[in-house]
């Protein structure tokens, strides 16, 4: 059975996939799906803080803009941040883990101690410090998240590489005269892929959560970008009366993070039989 087929048999993973699928579609088609696409930037001050209705599914915000439309556009920012930040983290972390695990001893020690330094500081604190220093913007959030997130992949790949290094197929490749680079990229890396994929899916959820926290603290995309975290921050002041204002972006973050976590769990079950949960 195909990988996708196996994934779909797991109910949790199927739900996760569905949520992520919807998120991606929403992000791509936001301008067509949003009932008031102009409300990303436009204000209608006379319609401030209207409760949810047929016209405004999630109500309106403090400037009279349609919350639902803004949430849909916010998905774009969220996806962009998550994909790029995680992508960069993987691009940094995987080679470092691979090299450190393969060469061990001195090189490995230096690289892994460096990643330990990053891991020693809570990710969110480090990300806040970096984003605050660089100033609020999407690019800086991505940078801050990438710089703080790579050690997770480095450690993972490091451990896998160490385990694989002593395996017969690696020794065979080496005995045949394959270069270190060839062994690492063509023989070891493919065998660590499933672990990387699982970690990446779960990492996406965590990254989105951290990005939202940065947005909440005013370090994310500057206004008027409809960033979810900042929308919640703006909405605090109108709680509990205008509950929809904070609830809508909160729900969006909740669903997306849950989606990635469910997908990650599902992928682990499918890709990594060793870790398959007992049932």
């Amino acid at each position, binding site marked *: 059975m195909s990988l996708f087929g196996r994934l779909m048999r797991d109910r949790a993973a199927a739900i996760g996939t569905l949520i992520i699928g919807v998120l991606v579609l929403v992000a791509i088609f936001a301008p067509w799906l949003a009932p008031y696409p102009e409300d990303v930037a*436009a*204000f209608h*001050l006379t319609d*401030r803080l209207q409760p949810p209705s047929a016209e405004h599914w999630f109500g309106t915000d*403090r*400037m009279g803009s349609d919350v639902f439309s803004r949430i849909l556009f916010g998905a774009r920012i969220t996806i962009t941040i998550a994909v790029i930040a995680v992508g960069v983290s993987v691009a940094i972390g995987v080679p470092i883990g691979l090299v450190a695990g393969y060469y061990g001893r001195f090189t490995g020690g230096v690289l892994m101690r460096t990643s330990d330094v990053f891991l020693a500081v809570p990710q969110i604190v480090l990300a806040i410090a970096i984003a605050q220093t660089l100033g609020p913007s999407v690019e800086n959030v991505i940078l801050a998240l990438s710089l703080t997130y790579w050690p997770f992949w480095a450690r993972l790949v490091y451990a896998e590489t160490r385990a694989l290094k002593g395996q017969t197929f690696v020794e065979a490749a080496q005995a045949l005269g394959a270069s270190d680079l060839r062994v690492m990229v063509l023989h070891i890396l493919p065998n660590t892929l499933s672990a990387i994929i699982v970690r990446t899916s779960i990492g996406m959820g965590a990254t989105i959560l951290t990005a939202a926290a940065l947005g909440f603290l005013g370090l994310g995309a500057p206004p008027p970008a409809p960033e979810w975290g900042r929308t919640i921050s703006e909405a*605090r002041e109108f709680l509990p*009366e205008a509950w929809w204002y904070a609830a809508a972006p909160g729900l969006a973050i909740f669903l997306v993070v849950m989606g990635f976590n469910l997908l990650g769990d599902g992928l682990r079950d499918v890709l990594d039989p060793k870790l398959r949960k007992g049932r």
Partner: protein
Amino acid sequence: MRYTAIAFASALALGVPAAVEAQSRYVHANNSAYDTLDPHTVFDVARVATRLNFYDGLYRWVDNPPELIPWLATEHTVSEDGLTWTFTLRDDVAFHDGTMMTAEDVVYSMERMLALASGAGALFQPMLEPGATQAVDEHTVSFTLKEPSAIFASLVPDILVVNSALLKENEVDDDWGQAYLTDNVAGSGSYILQRYDPAIGFIGERNADHFAGWGERYYDEIEFRTVLETNTRIQGLMRGDYQGLDGYLAPDQVKRLRSDEDVQILEEESMRVYHIAMHNGRPPLDDLNFRMAMNHAFDYEGYINAIMQGTVVRNPTIVPGNLWGVPDVAGYEFDLEKAQEYLDAYKAEHGDDIRTLNIGTLAGFAETEQAAALMQNGLAQLGIDVEIASAPWPVISSNMRNPETMPDMVPYWKSTYYADPNNWIGEQYGSRYAPTRNVSDYHNAEVDKRLEEALLTTDQEERDRLYKEAGQIVYDDAAGIWIYNTKWYGPYADSVEGIRFSPVGNGQDMRWAYPAEE
């Protein structure tokens, strides 16, 4: 809880019988931090409570419209040339450590203000030389001004007197005791410092021996706590954790508080002009056409009627409309077509490239964020990009005082420190106050001439005319974006009585307030 324990412990230490009446306590939630207790280095409304409650000035502002009453000084005389002001001091004023106040303390305080040149010192600097304050005798002090001043009398309450003996003991490298006064009090005020933490706020205990005496009822202890989150302040008041909040909440919040039966909202006419300060010294805002475009790109009506829900009135200049010396102007209107015309005129002269403008907003003050968003929206329609960055008030206010770090625009309030047009137009647009109070880097010789003249003459009609003319020029120069003049909506617990509101200090002079009888 911890504070109750402390109060209890101190009551025990003082040997007070345990059976005494419960201590009355007032807790105020403030929307920005008390980063220093020094009365001479800050001069804003956000941190006015430390100055009013720990220190005394020669005179004091009370009531609305604000009125001066004798305080540390009982009376004063002015020499015929208008230069020498002689104050008779009370002889029964004791500082918190028991030292009696003398004229020497007043001299030290004034010299300290002039030397530090921040806070109210910046207002005295242009009129007083160091050494021009003399102790005539133990209880008489004289100030010899460089030139006659129409506003010196209204600034007298800001001569807050510090305990010079105590400060001299604690001076480090001739710092005028700055390091010491950051987290200590050397005053004679109505409350004595109990506890201070820049992250939390301060607690003061009633100074029972204060020279002004006390009414029948009073608060034994006051606490001013920093609570940046508006919602936490509102809910805290409704829950009874706090007894009072800052009086300039957004109408959405006031509406919420009104619906709570344990909360009262005191209403007073005030003078607090909301405006967007613009950096007139930095391109492209140094160009009149560009500033005119800015002035026509802000949706005044939407802001006042929708966001402020009509609780404030349009104020077309920097001087509050309910004061004198206000030019008769209609006020700029939100008109993007007109804005575009001005912008085109600008572009014809300076080219099409317009850099991204930045607006600084005050963290915790949603009104500033909403004004910035509205401005950003208006400018986006003109094809101008705007970046908004938020920072806490102590940070942004120090950035504003330096033309290098002042953002292009900052929406904020100009409150009352003394009821004279100079408080608004003089300080905001007069060259003599740049850059500490005139944060706009605005310099116009015609305006300066009138403002200076108005400071010298005591002829009221003449002053009225001068301020009107200066106001007209500043208006024609579109030096700022002036939005509204506000009312004060003081939110207090129902149990609070006797709040004595004055536009100067906004009712935070706690010696007049007391808890209602059970």
